[in-house]
C-alpha cells in the first residue's frame, strides 16, 4: 500500500513539470470532455467549440473528447487543427453515455497521456462522460475544471440523487465555472461547494452571425419569433395559451416558431382550433445557420422558458435587433439590460400583458432601431472575453497541487458524507488499481506522443483549410517533422 502511495505521490510530478515547462509562457494543453459535441447541436456544443477556437488563437493546445456519433468515430480535425476524439463509448440515454466509472478509463488515459494534457475541462452536468473524465483525471493526477450549463431544482427525488452525484464528482474538482450568478448559487447549493472556487463566466454569441436586417421584416404585420426546442421546460404550453389571445386581439399579428419537439402537438392543436394556419407558421427544426434568417423577419423575440441558466437565444434575438420579451426565470434577468428586455412572470396573463405593451411600443415607434440595439448588444458577450476569463481559471488551476490518493480518499469521506463518501472512496481505490494495471500493460513511454497540430504554434503553420478530415490532416503533420 505504501508503495502505491509512493506511486500516487510521484504521479503528479511529470504533469507538474510539463506544466512548469509550459508554465512561463502560460501555455496549457487542455482536454475538453463532454458527451455533447458536433454533430449534435446546442448551447453546450457551440460553447465548447467557440471556446476551444479562441483558446487555440491564444496559443494553447486544445483537444476535445466526446463519444462516437454513428459513423463519426475515431479522430477528426476541425478548423485550426482542433482535434476531436470520437471515442467508441456506449450511448445510453439521449446522447449521454452509460457510465460504469471504469470502462472509459483506458481510452481517456490514452488521450490524456499522448496529448500531454495538463488541464481537463469537463462540460455539462448531464454528461456522464464528463463526470467519468473528472474522476479519471483525478486518479491520474491531473487538474480539472468543470463548467455547469444547467439549473436543477431540489424538490423531487431524482434531483436529490443527481445532486448527490454532482457533490461527489465535484468534490475534488479544482475549479468550477458557471454561466450565470443564479447558476453559481444553484451549483454551490447542489454540490455543497466552497463558493470561492466557482467562477461566473457567461456564454457568448458571435455578433457577426446575428446582424439585424430590417428589410426582411414585413411592414404590414407584426411578427413574433419563437425559437426553442418544443419541450415542456421551454414553456411551450404557455405559448399555446398566448397565441390565441393575442391573435384574437391583433389581426395583424403573426407567429414564427422554429424548433421541433414533443410539444409540437400542442401548437398544432391550437392552430387547428382557432384556424390560425396562415398566421402561425411552424418551421420545424432549424439549422443553426438558418436561425439568423428567421430572426431578422421578426419584430419581437419571445422566450417562454420555465428555467434557464443563461439564455443564449435572447441574446441572439437582441443582437438581431429584436425586442425581447421573456419570462423572469433563472439567470435570464442578469443577461440583458432592462431597456432591451421586458421581463414577465411565467404565466399567460403576465406574458400577454408584456407583449401587449411591447406591441404598443412598436406601433408608436418608441423603441430604438435594430441597428442601435445590435450596436449595444454586440459588445456584451464575446468569445474572446470568455476565453480570457477561462484562461485565468486555467492559470490559477495549473498552479494547484493534486491530492494524492490517501488525502483524496479522506476528502471524499468528509465531504460527501459517510455512506456515499466511502462508496466512492472504494471506487476511487479500484480505479487507481485499474490505472496501475493499465500502466503495467501499456506503459506511458510506449505510447507515442501525438503531433500537435493546433493553433499558430502548431505544426501546420497558419491554418488554411476548414474542417479537414483526419487523413489529409495527418499527412502534412508528419511531413513537417
Amino acid at each position, binding site marked *: 500500500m505504501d508503495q502505491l502511495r509512493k506511486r500516487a505521490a510521484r504521479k503528479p510530478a511529470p504533469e507538474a513539470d510539463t506544466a512548469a515547462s509550459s508554465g512561463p509562457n502560460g501555455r496549457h494543453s487542455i482536454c475538453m470532455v463532454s458527451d455533447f459535441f458536433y454533430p449534435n447541436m446546442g448551447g453546450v456544443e457551440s460553447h465548447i467549440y467557440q471556446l476551444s477556437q479562441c483558446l487555440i488563437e491564444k496559443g494553447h493546445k486544445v483537444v476535445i473528447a466526446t463519444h462516437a456519433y454513428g459513423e463519426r468515430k475515431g479522430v477528426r480535425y476541425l478548423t485550426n487543427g482542433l482535434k476531436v476524439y470520437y471515442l467508441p463509448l456506449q450511448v445510453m440515454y439521449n446522447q449521454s453515455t452509460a457510465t460504469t466509472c471504469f470502462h472509459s478509463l483506458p481510452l481517456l488515459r490514452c488521450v490524456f497521456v499522448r496529448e500531454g494534457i495538463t488541464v481537463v475541462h469537463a462540460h455539462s452536468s448531464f454528461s456522464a462522460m464528463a463526470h467519468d473524465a473528472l474522476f479519471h483525471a483525478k486518479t491520474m493526477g491531473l487538474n480539472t475544471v468543470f463548467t455547469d450549463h444547467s439549473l436543477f431544482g431540489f424538490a423531487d427525488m431524482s434531483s436529490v440523487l443527481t445532486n448527490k452525484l454532482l457533490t461527489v464528482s465535484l468534490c475534488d474538482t479544482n475549479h468550477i465555472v458557471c454561466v450565470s450568478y443564479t447558476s453559481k448559487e444553484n451549483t454551490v447549493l447542489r454540490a455543497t461547494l466552497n463558493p470561492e472556487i466557482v467562477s461566473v463566466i457567461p456564454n457568448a454569441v458571435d455578433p457577426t452571425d446575428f446582424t439585424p436586417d430590417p428589410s426582411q421584416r414585413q411592414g404590414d404585420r407584426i411578427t413574433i419569433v419563437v425559437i426553442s426546442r418544443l419541450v415542456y421546460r421551454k414553456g411551450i404550453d404557455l405559448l399555446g395559451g398566448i397565441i390565441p389571445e393575442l391573435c*384574437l386581439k391583433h*389581426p395583424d399579428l403573426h407567429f414564427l416558431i422554429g424548433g*421541433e419537439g414533443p410539444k*409540437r*402537438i400542442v401548437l*398544432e*392543436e391550437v*392552430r*387547428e*382550433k*382557432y*384556424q*390560425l*394556419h*396562415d398566421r402561425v*407558421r*411552424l418551421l*420545424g427544426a432549424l439549422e443553426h445557420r438558418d436561425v439568423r434568417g428567421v430572426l431578422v423577419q421578426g419584430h419581437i423575440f419571445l422566450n417562454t422558458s420555465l428555467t434557464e441558466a443563461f439564455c443564449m437565444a435572447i441574446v441572439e434575438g437582441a443582437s438581431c435587433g429584436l425586442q425581447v420579451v421573456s419570462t423572469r426565470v433563472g439567470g435570464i434577468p442578469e443577461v440583458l439590460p432592462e431597456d432591451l428586455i421586458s421581463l414577465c412572470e411565467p404565466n399567460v396573463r403576465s406574458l400577454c400583458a408584456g407583449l401587449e405593451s411591447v406591441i404598443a411600443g412598436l406601433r408608436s415607434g418608441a423603441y430604438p432601431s435594430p441597428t442601435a440595439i445590435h450596436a449595444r448588444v454586440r459588445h456584451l458577450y464575446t468569445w474572446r472575453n470568455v476565453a480570457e476569463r477561462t484562461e485565468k481559471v486555467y492559470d490559477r488551476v495549473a498552479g494547484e497541487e493534486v491530492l494524492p490518493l490517501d488525502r483524496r480518499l479522506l476528502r471524499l469521506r468528509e465531504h460527501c458524507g459517510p455512506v456515499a463518501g466511502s462508496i466512492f472512496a472504494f471506487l476511487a481505490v479500484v480505479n487507481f488499481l485499474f490505472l496501475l494495471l493499465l500502466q503495467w500493460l501499456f506503459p506511458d513511454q510506449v505510447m507515442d506522443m501525438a503531433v500537435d497540430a493546433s493553433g499558430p504554434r502548431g505544426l501546420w503553420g497558419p491554418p488554411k483549410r476548414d474542417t479537414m478530415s483526419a487523413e489529409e490532416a495527418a499527412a502534412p503533420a508528419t511531413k513537417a517533422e
Partner: protein
Amino acid sequence: MVLRVFFPQCCNRADSGLLVGRWLPGHDTAVVLAVIHYPFIPSHVKQYLQQIQGQSQVEVGVLGSWSMPSEKQEGLDRFLQDLSTIFPQKRWLQVSRQIGKTGFSCRLLQQPDKEGEEKEEEVEEKERIIFVHYEQRKVMLSQLHPVESPTEPGLENPSEIRQVFWTVAHSKPLFLRDKYDEGPLKLSHWQSEGREASILVELMKQSSTPLCLLVTWLLGAWTWLTNTWLLKLSPVRLVSSKLSSCVQLGYRAAHLKTVSSIQTATSHTEFMRKANILMSVLLDVCLGLLFMFWLYREDRLAWLAQSLLPAADRVSKELEELLQWLMGAPAGLKMNRALDQVLGRFFLYHIHLWISYLRLLSPFLEVILWYGGLSAALGLTFALSLLSDMLALLTFHIYCFYVYGARLYCMKLYGLCSLWRLFRGRKWNVLRQRVDSCCYDLDQLFIGTLLFTILLFLLPTTALYYLVFTMLRLVVVVVQGALHLSVDLINSFPLFALGLRVFTPYRLAEGVKFRVLSDEPGTALHLMMEMNALGLGEVVQTYRTPTYSCYPRDSWIALLRKLVVVCWTGTRTRRTRDAGLLDPAGDAMGSQGSPVKRYDYLLKFLLVGDSDVGKGEILDSLQDGAAESPYAYSSGIDFKTTTILLDGRRVKLELWDTSGQGRFCTIFRSYSRGAQGILLVYDITNRWSFDGIDRWIREIDEHAPGVPRILVGNRLHLAFKRQVPTEQARAYAEKNGMTFFEVSPLCNFNVIESFTELSRIVLMRHGMEKFWKPNRVFTLQDLCCRAIVSCTPVHLIDKLPLPVAIKSHLKSFSMANGMNAVMMHGRSYSLANGPAGAKGNSLKRSKSIRPPQSPPQNCSRSNCKIS
C-alpha cells in the same frame, strides 16, 4: 518520367532484330509483342504489320531494335540506328544485351517528326526505364477480375495493367503465325505447341452445331406446349408455380436454351456461364442416372411402395396420439377443458379424412413411384424436387393444422392486445402512432374486461396448439429446405470455373504481382510480372449461376419469419405505417415541395357518414388508392392514399374511413385531430342517412371545429329510387356553408372532382398560394392549359383530341377554376367555420380567398348541373 517496357520472356534469348509492339496511349509504356529477326525487307515488315493490324484491332508498330550479342558484331549498332530512320517513330527503343550481364541496357532516341537533322538524345541514367518481363501465353489467356467490358479499356479507365492484358490478348493473330513457316519474315514470340489438339477442338465445334439445333427445336416444342391454353388456366398456373418440380423443369429448360444457342459466346462472362451450366447439367444427369441405377435394382421400388403407406399410417397414428395427449392435461398444463375438446376433435377429424385419402391412393402408389423414378433421367435435381413435392403433399394435413392454429392464435393475440390497452384505460391513436389515454364509458370497460378475462384464460390452450403444430411444420419445412438447398447447390455450382482455377490458376487472375529480378547497378530495373490467382471463394461467388430459389420461399430466414412472425403481422404493418404516414413535419405546410417526395402537399381527409352509405365504395373506386390494412382489429378505421392533380400540383390525399357507428365517437375524436378536411357522405337512396348528417355536423363542430367540409351524396347511379331531392340537399349545403356534390363511384362520376375541391379549399385555407404563387413560374404547358380551360367546358375536355395525361392535367385546371366559382357563389368557405371559429378571422379570410383570375361561369355551371 519513367519508361515501362513490358517484355515477353520468350524473347529474352531471341537473336537481334526489330521489336514489334505497341505504345499504350496515355502512359509512356511499351508492350513488346515479338521480335522480327533480320534479314528482312522493310516493306514486307510494313505490310505484315498492316495485315496484323487489320486482323486484330491493335495498332501494332515497330518499337525499336533489339540486339543480341553474338559474333559478327561489327556495324550492328550503326545499322540499328539507321533502322530508326526507316521506321519513323516518335520514340525509338534500342534494347541490347551485353555478354556477362543479365540485365538489358536500353537507349531511347527521341526524334521530331519534322525532317530536320536527326537530333538524338540518349536517356542519361539508365534507371529511368523499367523492364517488366511477362509470360506471353499466360497473359494472353488470363482474364483479369473484376471482369469488364470486352472493348478496349482506353479512356474510360486508365488502368495500365488492363491495357497491357488487352493488347496481348487481342494480338492473338500475331501469335498464331508459325515461326517456321515459309514467310518473308522470321519472328520470335510465344506460340502454341500441339496443333492437333486444337484441330480436334475445331472438329468438335463443327459437330456440336447440329446437336444444338436439335435441342433448340425440342425446346421450342416444349415452350409451345407450355404456352397452350390448357396450361394457361389460373389453377394450373398456380399449382405449377407452387410445385418445385415444375419450377425446376422450367429452370432447366431455360438453361438448355442458353447452352444450345448457336452464336458463340463473345464476352468472357457469357462463355463462363455457358460452360458452367453445361457442366452442371452434365453432372446432374450423371448423378440422376446413378440414382436410377441404384433405384431400379432388386425392386427397391416395390419395397418403397409397401413401406410408404405404413409410414404414413404411423405418422397419422402418432399425430392422433399427440392430439389425445393434448386433449388430456399435456405436461401438467391446465387448459380449458371445453375449448380443448373442441379443437382436438376438429383436428382428429382432419386426420381421419387424411387417412381415407391415403387408402384411396394406395393401389396406384407403386406405379406412381416407378414413373417418378424415371424422372431421375432428367437429372438428380429433378428427382429431388419431385421428392420434396411428394413430401409436401403427404404432409398437407400438418400444414392445415399449422394454419388453423396460427390464425386462431393471431386473432386471440390481437384481441388481447387491444383489450389490454382498454384494460389500462389506453387506446392506440392511429394518427399519432402512439398510445393515448382516454376515458371509456362504464359499459365499455365492463364488457371489455369480461372479454379480456375470458381470452386471457383461453390463451394457453390455443398457444399450446399453435406451438405444437408450429413445431411439426418446422420439421417438415426443414426437410424440404434441405432438399431445395441440395437442388440449389447442384444447379448453381460453378464446376467449370473451379476446374479452371485449380488446373490453370492463371486463367482467372485477380491481379498481378511483381518480383524484382535483378538490381545490379547500371542496368535498368527488371521486374517479373506474375498472375495473382483468384481466391476459391471469389470464384464461386463470381461464377455461381443465379437460381430460381433465390426468392424467399426457400431462403431460411424468410421461412422462419413466416413461421414465427405470422402472429405479428399486425404489428409489422403498423410499423411500416410509421414510416409511411404523416412525416414529423406533419402539417401540410411542413410537407411543402421537397423534391424527394412524389407529392407537393399531404392532406388528410375524413369520410364520415352513417354506416353503409358507401364510404367504402368511394374509397375502393380510387384506382391508384394504395390500401392500408386497419391497424388492429376493433378499430373500424382504415385509410387509402391517392394522389390528385390540383392546378398542376400533385396533392397526396390520405382518406380515412371512420366507421359510421356512433359508438366510435371517441375514436372519431382522435382522428379528427390531424384531419384537414371532412367529406360528409350520405346515400341519396336513404333518407335516414341524410338526416344523420345533422348529427355528424354537430360531432364535427364539437371535436374538429372549423375543418373544411363538403357534402357528398353517394350512389347517384341509383337515382331512380332517390329519396333525397337534389335541390333540398343543395339548399342544406348552402345553409351550412358547404359545397355539394352528388357522386357515383360505380360510374366514377364526380368522385375525384369532389376530392379536388375539398383539397383546394383546404389549401386555400392554409394560405398555400402565398407559398407557391410567388416562387412559381408558369410553364408553357400551364399557360396553354389555362387558355384551353378558359374557353372549354369541362365535359368537352374529354372530347378533345389529346393524350390522356394532358387531359387529366386539363381537368385538374378546369376543376380548379370551377371550384373557385362554386366557392364564390356559394360563399362556402367564409361560413365554413361558423360557430367555433372567430368571426373576425373568417370574414377577413373570406376576402382573401377570392381567386385572382375570374373563372368563366360556364364550366362551373357544368360542374354543378351534371350532378
